[in-house]
């Protein structure tokens, strides 16, 4: 999966958790999930669980803590996909 492909899928994972669909459509690597997309911090857990199912990966707690903006999400998900092989 390319980084762009992961991003396209990530938008679908995040969609149910933000009401700001315009901002979601135009997200960049720097977009912060909580500050910019106004996602409830409790819902980050749900995004991680949904991402695990979507990419067929497991995201450990330490990696999850790094998933703050779109760029770090892509880093973690990309790494886990590679680990999975």
């Amino acid at each position, binding site marked *: 999966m390319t980084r762009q492909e992961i991003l396209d899928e990530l938008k679908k994972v995040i969609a149910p958790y933000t009401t700001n669909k315009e901002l979601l459509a135009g997200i960049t690597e720097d977009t912060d999930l909580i500050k910019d997309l106004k996602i409830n911090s*409790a819902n980050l*857990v749900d995004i991680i669980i949904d991402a695990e199912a979507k990419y067929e990966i497991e995201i450990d707690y330490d990696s999850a803590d790094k998933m703050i903006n779109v760029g770090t999400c892509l880093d973690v998900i990309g790494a886990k996909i590679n680990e999975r092989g």
Partner: protein
Amino acid sequence: MSKRVVVTGMGVVAPNGIGLPAFLQAIQNGMSGIKFIPQYKELNFSCHIAGLPDFSWEELANYISEVTLHGLKGTNIGYGLVAAMDAWADSGMGYETEKPRWETGCVFGNSTADTEAMKNVITRVDGKEARKLGSRVVEQAMNSGVTSYITGRLGLGNKVITNSAACATGTQAILMGYEYIKHGYADRMLVGSTEHVDPYVYGAFDSMRVLSRKFNDEPEKASRPMSLTAGGFIPGSGAGALVLEDLDFALQRGARIYAEVLGGSTNSGGQRSGGTMTAANSEGVIRCIQSALADAHVRPKQIDLISGHLTATNADKQEIQNWSDALGRKGKDFPTTNSLKSMIGHCLSAAGSIETVASILQIMHNFAHPNINLDDPNPDILEITGFDNLPVNMTRKEINIVAKANFGFGDVNSCLILSKFKA
């Protein structure tokens, strides 16, 4: 100084109608909301029918954000949200607010979380997949789930309480809100209750052999309070909600006033002197009704209508006897009496709030709704009530004061005295 408390908005999700216009039409025309539930037959229950609101889950998108709706599984919460927010809008207020509404509190009751939804939680945990449960379980499993969703959506910032008193929950919630305003702690209270009888709760009642078994083929005829063929109650689901306000506060904002809560009482028979976990101590019931009258400064002969608990079990006769003893009225002099459960079944925690909405509609529109299915009234009951006081058709009459009571497991009682508003 104690305040007068008025009702300025109502919302209802009932088995025979959602929203005030549909519900009013249903109770005026004696429309039943009891339906055959194929799943209950497959599950080998003795009773195969229930009162189920014709509720569209997608409709919730008009009430809460899609983010909140995504992951909402608690049916009881869905019903409660719609009833509460409809009541809010009905009282002429908008949903959105930047700041907390410090002047408004909430007392909303329910029995238990949606056990069917919780089944998924149990399965995941047992399957060693607890980490996949996500963030939305606790808020729906907690007993205060429904209250939290309602108050969060509307920004309510005064007292927020979740009450639970079995079948007396709804009337008790309204009473608690009334008392809080009366004593000057809040200007406005959003009150009500919700119930979703999922198969697990239903099954437990079925096993107690307190549900109707003999009318599975004729669901609409199955709920038969006060009749000779009353063979148990029919579980129902739904929610009712009311906006209560301090009279002066309501007048100041030019609110439309539906009715006044004159007073009420809630107590317990202590599970003594005939009272048990499942049966009412008559002395407790009588004291509850009489305390409600005293609180409301209403004399027994002023009661125009009794909206009974009257579930269609063998407790109906004793309830009627208790009303008669509490009011000192019998035969021709007995008040007009009806049971909404004949149309919607017994909505347990939601019974009191839905039945209070019905009571206030009867006050506003001057009618007594019919007791449907009362083809064969129990002669022992007729001996107390007289022949003409249990309407089987809608009866147009001036309704000034209604006594609305509910009695629940744990030997708990709640009674409200509701009145036409007179400045």
